[in-house]
């Protein structure tokens, strides 16, 4: 087990180097001069441009720039972005916000998705089941930004139940609206996955055995049907967590959430290579961690799954 985890962690190194190199190169290859873009119609003197270029190592060739970036990374010095802000502080600010949003969205889709999916599966073909199926289809079909704008307008402006945007005061309460929007689409998928899985497992031999043994209905449903139905759902949720941490550019934009998506978008627009690469580096680590967590959960959910040495 420990060997397995270690090997998985070792795999992170080439993945990490590869992605940062790729992203760094892509930002480097972006057209336009990031220093000149800092100035509007009135260009500064050549001397100022030269001084800034030197300050951010932009006068160096690509390999030197990338090397300096790696060197700084391993000495835990992420440097400053073009606005003079330490990048480490930026990361420390945006990731908690997005993490909160992601966890809240994940909680919404997991709790509601599994609950509704379980009930629908158990009551297959009944009114509840068909209603939920149709409703989830509608949710999947509607694009996120439509859901976002409608919820924002109805709940935020017309009913006034919640503030329409998040801004500076991001906490569990203010993030509920964007988290709902973000969670809704995946909620529909989780629901359908759970339902399909539950229906399949309901007719499994071990469920019949458990019922025949005289186990109580709740125990059969929770310990046998639900637990065994969770494997595809957990895979999906785990992959989703990585995606959610990457920041939802559209949803964060609609609700003005100062998170990863917004910052990444802005950094790309401003050709801020170091910021983009720093954010992506953290995202790579998050994805790897989320995948590892999912793989470890399999063994807990289904003891028949064993890890090769």
């Amino acid at each position, binding site marked *: 087990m420990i060997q397995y985890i270690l090997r998985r962690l070792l795999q992170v190194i080439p993945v990490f180097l590869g992605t940062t190199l790729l992203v760094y190169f892509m930002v480097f290859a972006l057209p336009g001069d990031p220093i000149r873009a800092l100035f509007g119609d009135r260009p500064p*003197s050549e001397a100022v441009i030269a001084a800034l270029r*030197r300050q951010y190592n932009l006068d160096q060739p690509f390999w030197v720039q990338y090397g300096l970036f790696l060197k700084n990374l391993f000495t835990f010095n992420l440097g400053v972005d073009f606005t003079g802000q330490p990048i480490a502080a930026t990361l420390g600010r945006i990731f908690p916000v997005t993490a909160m949003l992601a966890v809240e969205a994940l909680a919404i889709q997991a709790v509601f998705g599994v609950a509704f999916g379980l009930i629908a599966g158990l009551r297959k073909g009944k009114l509840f089941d068909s209603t939920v199926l149709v409703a989830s289809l509608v949710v999947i079909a509607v694009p996120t930004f439509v859901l976002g704008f409608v919820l924002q307008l109805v709940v935020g402006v017309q009913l006034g139940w919640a503030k329409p945007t998040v801004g500076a005061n991001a906490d569990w309460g203010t993030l509920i609206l964007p988290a709902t929007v973000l969670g809704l689409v995946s909620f529909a998928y989780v629901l359908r996955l759970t339902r399909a899985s539950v229906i399949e497992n309901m007719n499994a031999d071990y469920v019949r055995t458990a019922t025949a043994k005289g186990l109580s209905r709740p125990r059969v449903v929770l310990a046998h049907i639900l637990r065994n139905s969770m494997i595809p759902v957990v895979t999906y949720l785990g992959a989703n967590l990585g995606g959610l941490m990457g920041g939802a550019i559209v949803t964060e934009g*609609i609700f003005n959430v100062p998170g990863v998506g917004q910052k990444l978008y802005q950094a790309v627009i401003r050709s801020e290579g170091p910021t983009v690469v720093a954010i992506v580096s953290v995202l790579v680590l998050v994805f790897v961690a989320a995948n590892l967590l999912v793989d470890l959960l399999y063994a807990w959910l289904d003891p028949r799954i064993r890890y090769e040495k």
Partner: protein
Amino acid sequence: MRFSRTSKALGVLAVAALALTGCGSASSGNSAPTAAGDPNKIITAYSNEPQHPLIPSNTNEVYGGRVVDLLFEGLTSYDANGKSVNALAESIDTSDGQNYTIKVKKGAKFTNGEAVTAKSFVDAWNFAALSTNAQASSSFFESIEGYDAVSATKKETGADGKSTTTPAPTAQTMSGLVLKDDSTISVKLAQPEADWPQRLGYSAFMPLPADALKDPKAFGENPIGNGPYKMAAKGAWQHDSQIALVKNADYQGPRMAKNGGVTFKFYTDPAPAYTDIQANNLDVTDVLPTNALKTYTADFPDHNLNKAYAGNATLNIPNYLPEFQGDAGKLRRQAISMAINRDEITKVVFNGTRIPAKDFTSPSIDGYNANVAGSDVLKFDAAQAKDLWAKAEAISPWPAGKTLQLAYNTDGGNKEWIDAVANNLKNNLGIKAEGQPFAKFAEILNLRKAKTLPGFTRAGWQADYPSLFNFLGPLLKTGASANYEGYSNPEFDKLLTEGLASKSTGDANKKFTQAQEILFKDLPNLPLWYQARQAVWSQNVTNVDSGWNGVLLYYNITAK
């Protein structure tokens, strides 16, 4: 049995849902309505993360600029009409437009208690101009003698044959800037520029406390100024979220705050801000989402602003085009100008967010005159346009089959109005006209400089400081830096020079108006429309207006 279990489960879900939404509404409880006209209300306003630390001389973009403008007070400031008025300057005297003696008022203080003296200005200006400090607005000091020494560069050719430019100042301070005593500054310019004092209200010319020069980076995070507002606390700049300013009670000057403070909330997109105003969750925004430009007057009746600021759009005519030279050329210029229906285009294409031009400058500038003699040529009159064109044809005919090309850059949303202008010319003059697209404005500029552009080009000008001259001199004076079309008229040049040498702004403006009369005869370019600022505000505030440069006058906004 099973039924009751599921209904129990549903019940649990319902409770969970209530708890979740409950926690949402609890934190969003609308703040209690403030008393009518509460003078201590904190105004919340749309903004975005400033691109640089908040040092006035390093702030050259709008979102940092609006904060710095409120935190600092310079020698002069601009009133709502774009008039430059003395703020910290007791007097600014010159006898020749080249040598200035500036007296600084006594008694003003930075919010840390330090006195604002002549030294606060001189040190700040020298800091800003020195190239190794890499200040974004350093070029604003280029008129002062000795600027070339502090901004000198040297070119090096590396081993790889690539040449790199490095800053290599030969002096640390400008020789033309001299501190006479605690309240006197003497300034020598490289050449006479009578409108130089009108620039002193710009943020690059603000004074700085001594701490700022010791550690500019730390200062830029928590700036200490002398303006109508101060930072609410240390760390009031919450990056990517907001900047909170509160009224500076010690401030004495022309821009007294009429509210308790201004909190700039950051939005990377204007749409959520618009929604927030609708929900009274934000007080004022000066950037509207594109799709709201059609609806904002209906969405916010009596709560919206659409006001011209110091920027304009023109159609420029290169003077090397043979068809537009001589008497026939003059007639053709007039004909084309009168064939363009500015009212209709601003209304239909721009939804009224541009204002039809009546002169070569801008209505937000002191000395603006909407009725300069000859400005009738900007009024749409299809019949007369046709008439004038026919007269030109009688002198020298338009080359058979020639299409008049109108160059524009496609990255700025220009296609629609260029097409509308081309249609105007086709329908009203019966000539072939079409847009000539370029990806970037810089491409057009290169052709204009090389004098190889085959037709007209769109152009725009944003004033650096509120002066009629700034719209005329740099663009149309013989050999001026931005006079790409090569217009030259000695009579016009003479009036500009006389204007600059005038004793009072009023006299100068008279000369500049006379200069415009010449432009209306020559039509070196065709003024189309003025840029305008659109803003909307919530039910909670009133008295929202914009200044000469389109920036809202935040200090005048009051609670309702």
